[in-house]
């Protein structure tokens, strides 16, 4: 019933809000005094409440970075946990200012749904997980013909799954749940033979299983899943703020600016770093964005650079231990490339 209410509220907000839709989100956020950020209800490594009730993860930290850019304070964020189904209505209706919820960038979402994606904070792909105790001898997704597969409703995963089995002429039996937690529980209880979602998600889900070591992630990746933050279309200023916060995180990593050394870096002789950190004389980069000139300093102080966020939440500093892979900087053979701040 909660979702019914959410959808109805979303729809009625769309129906009734006379002015919010295309108004200046940046001014609204500043007036409100905090950033309303839509995140996953509980995906380890991306956004999940910890034992103190604080939201942690890569997606949650990205919102903190945006809040730091706007307010100079990364704690001025309020998080809204959203299911895959509710997320788009929440952003369309203005319930949230930014959707940072492992959401795949697709042309349909960019156009028909009326969003803009600010970048790709995590390059992912869809994979499958099985219980190797129950299904011995399965080493490839091509052996899954006839299997019951748990999947979350309203995701690109659900669509890729249909396409993949269709194009390989395999049968399957989809068991579709609205909530991530419901799908996890059903898979753990043995309702399905396999579980499918983004591969990063599979590692997170595996940790939540009753006995994680029984489950293996199959090697195939069947789709491209570029995950990134989205904002409403038609508000270029706010889009710029979010986009350049993302580039700032990448450029900071490239320049070696970290949470620990950002203060001393302000005095660096390197003109690139000085420009980025707003210590260049007569700089207007920050104010042109509608922010203060030390916005990058605030962002890095709040969350660290992209590499730090990654390692802390999903990389070596986390239980997930995911390697950087394609998410490494372009200078290290990955795909993450920050546009120049100048």
């Amino acid at each position, binding site marked *: 019933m909660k979702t019914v209410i959410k959808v109805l509220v979303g729809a009625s907000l769309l129906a009734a809000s006379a002015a919010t839709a295309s108004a200046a989100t940046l001014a609204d956020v500043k007036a409100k005094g905090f950033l309303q950020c839509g995140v996953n209800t509980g995906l380890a490594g991306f956004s999940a409440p910890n034992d103190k009730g604080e939201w942690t993860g890569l997606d949650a930290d990205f919102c903190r970075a945006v809040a730091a850019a706007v307010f100079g304070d990364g704690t001025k964020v309020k998080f809204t946990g959203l299911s895959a189904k509710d997320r788009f209505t929440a952003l369309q209706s203005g319930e949230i200012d930014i959707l940072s919820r492992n959401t795949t960038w697709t042309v349909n979402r960019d156009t028909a749904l*009326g969003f803009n994606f600010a970048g790709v904070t995590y390059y992912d792909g869809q994979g499958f997980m099985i219980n190797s105790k129950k299904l011995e001898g399965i080493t490839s997704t091509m052996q899954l013909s*006839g299997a*019951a597969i748990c999947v979350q409703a309203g995701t690109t995963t659900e669509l890729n799954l*249909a396409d993949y089995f269709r194009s390989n002429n395999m049968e399957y*039996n989809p068991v579709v749940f609205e909530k991530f937690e419901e799908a996890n529980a059903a898979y753990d209880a043995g309702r399905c033979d396999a579980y499918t979602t983004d591969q990063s998600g599979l590692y997170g889900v595996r940790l939540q299983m009753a006995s994680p070591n029984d489950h293996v992630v199959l090697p195939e990746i069947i789709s491209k899943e570029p995950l990134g933050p989205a904002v409403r279309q038609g508000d270029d200023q706010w889009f710029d703020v979010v986009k350049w916060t993302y580039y700032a995180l990448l450029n900071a990593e490239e320049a070696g600016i970290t949470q620990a050394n950002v203060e001393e870096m302000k005095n660096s002789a390197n003109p690139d770093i000085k420009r980025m950190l707003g210590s260049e004389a007569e700089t207007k980069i920050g104010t042109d964005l509608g922010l203060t000139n030390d916005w990058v300093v605030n962002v890095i102080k709040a969350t660290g650079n992209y590499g730090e966020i990654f390692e802390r939440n999903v990389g070596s500093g986390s239980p997930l231990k995911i390697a950087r892979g394609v998410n490494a900087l372009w200078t290290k053979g990955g795909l993450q490339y920050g546009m120049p701040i100048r």
Partner: protein
Amino acid sequence: MATQDVTEDIRPAKASFLYDPRVRSLFVQAVVILLLVLGIWWIVDNTLLNLRRSNITTGFGFLRGRSGFDISDRLIEYSSDGTYGRALVVGILNTLLVAVTGIVVATIIGFLVGIGRLSNNWLIRKIATVYVEVFRNIPPLLVILFWYQGVLALLPNVRGSYVLPFNSFLNSRGFYLPRPVWGDGAWLVLAGLIVGVALSYFVARRAKARQAATGQQFPVFLTSLALIIGLPILGFILSGMPLTFDLPQKGAFNLTGGLNVKPEFLSLLLALSFYTAAFIAEIVRAGIQGVSRGQTEAASSLGLSSGQSLRMVVIPQAMRIVIPPLTSQYLNLTKNSSLAVAIGYPDLYAVGGTILNQTGQAIEVVVIFMVVYLSISLLTSLLMNWFNAKMALNER
């Protein structure tokens, strides 16, 4: 102000038309309708404006698009190449299926428990009371989750399936039954059934007319039973027994073939039936108790047995009390079926939600939800009102 002039021209002697109650009430109603139309127009216009401003496409054209997702429980042919419209139809049919079977099962359980509440047997009476108090005091969602996670999920896995008679299996993936496959000439069986039902109807009418005229009774029930069962069997034998069974077989992962009743459907059906049956039981009890004791006494003084008096005197009168609130319970059951989304049964609400997410057409999909649920509910009400009118006392 033209009307005023006209009024004054025609009836100059009368008091001002402002004091005419008919004119006043017309005026008030006109203003209310005007405000309503303006209000709706404002909402629609504002919505369209905002949707345009947020660059969201509007209209129902999206229903013709390729859906791209699969649905496991379906009554009609559907694949991911089908349209969103067809996916919605699959969802609507699933909702209807669970609603209709749920109504049947809930009615049966409800009547049994309701009569049990009035039983002379202490144990039966107490069991019925406990049943009613437990199920009507738990939210329906919890009952659904209880059946899904607390009962059906705990069944053994595929390899350890319970083997039931007639090649049926029960495991955590649901209930597997042999699927009947009809061959050539199977229409004779159906024809036998139709003829049997039609004949029974005429027999019943004739028997009633004869009893009214002569007082002689005819064993209508047994004759009808023989006709309805016997004629299809005759057709079956005549056409050379054109029936084979598709038996569930062990596949690589699941049992394949046969008829699979999935645990999602089963738990939803059981939960909705058990939940609603608790309310129906109370309605039935109230209905029976609402028939005055004098009626039963009068019936027995006429020499009717207790069974006859229940069937011919008490129940017809109780039905008049029972049917109106029963209709509300049927409507509740239908609407509660949207809770299916919690356990992944692809009913209208679950499928519609996926479409909403895929296309972003929130308002259109919510409108479809409202129209479909409203239509189903109105149709149920219509049927039940017709039934009620048929059962009502014909006062002369």
